[in-house]
């Protein structure tokens, strides 16, 4: 497995990676929760069509679109303390960029969605204003997955986590550590 240069003491890096990991677990729980609300909100709209922006199902749904970008924003700020997680040209990690851009698209769509429902009323899952909600979330989840794999692979390299026993999974971690999981140029 490739050995990355240590720019901070190992113990410091492990502690910082674990603090990032804690936020990631919290964000994972929040994301799991919004999946539940998809059904709650969906079942409400099956019966009452478009009610109001201010229903408990919408508070639940929209509060995620605030909580998740804020949480990943916290990760992006703290992430600067772990040199190995930097992206190309010392920029933000590519996975984090995708995550934050995905949620920004989602937040932007909240406004678009309200305008659509103000003028066109009907609440149907496949209307165009909902497309960007879903695409934004998918982009964010893909970026988050790339980032999570990167953090976990580094924890393995530092000896703080046990690598996967499945050889295919182990190979994936190895490729992530070498910056080859998605592309040779995008770490």
């Amino acid at each position, binding site marked *: 497995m490739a050995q990355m240069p240590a720019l901070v*003491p190992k113990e410091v890096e492990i*502690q910082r990676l674990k603090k990032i990991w804690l936020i990631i677990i919290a964000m994972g*729980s929040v994301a799991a*929760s919004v999946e*539940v*609300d998809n059904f709650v909100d969906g079942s409400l709209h099956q019966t009452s069509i478009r009610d109001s922006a201010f229903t408990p*199902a919408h508070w639940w749904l929209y509060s995620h679109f605030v909580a998740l970008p804020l949480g990943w924003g916290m990760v992006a700020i703290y992430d600067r303390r772990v040199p190995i997680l930097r992206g190309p040209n010392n920029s933000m990690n590519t996975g984090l960029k995708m995550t934050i851009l995905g949620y920004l698209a989602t937040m932007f769509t909240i406004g678009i969605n309200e305008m659509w429902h103000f003028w066109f009323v009907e609440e149907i899952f496949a209307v165009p204003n909902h497309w960007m909600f879903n695409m934004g979330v998918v982009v964010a989840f893909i970026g988050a997955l790339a980032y999570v794999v990167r953090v976990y692979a580094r924890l393995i390299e530092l000896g703080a986590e046990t690598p996967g026993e499945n050889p295919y999974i182990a190979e994936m971690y190895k490729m992530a550590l070498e910056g080859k999981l998605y592309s040779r140029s995008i770490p």
Partner: protein
Amino acid sequence: MTLPRGFGTGGASGEGSADVERMIGRRVEHMGGLITLSYIAAWLATFGGTAAGYFYYPWAYPTNSGHFAFIVLTIIESIGYLFCMKVTQEGSRVSTNGLIAGTMGIIAILTVLISTFVGF
């Protein structure tokens, strides 16, 4: 190893253990109390959110479906709590299995009681 400005002795002898501790700050294995309180707060907020549904909007949110969401979310939060506590304590001598089991057990019992008696 190069340390950030303000740490170490100017490059002559590298970092000392005091410098490392100062860079780490609060260790994750000592965050168990904070994580436990956050878990309890999240669970209370979940109860508040679902209760708002079936107390104020009973026409749209039947109590049973509110309790279903409450139970599912409690499970999600409990898994997250367990992961957080285990991630922070692995590889260290700190072990609070009693705290984890006690907290999750009490919350499980309260969840069942709330789902059985509240809101009907």
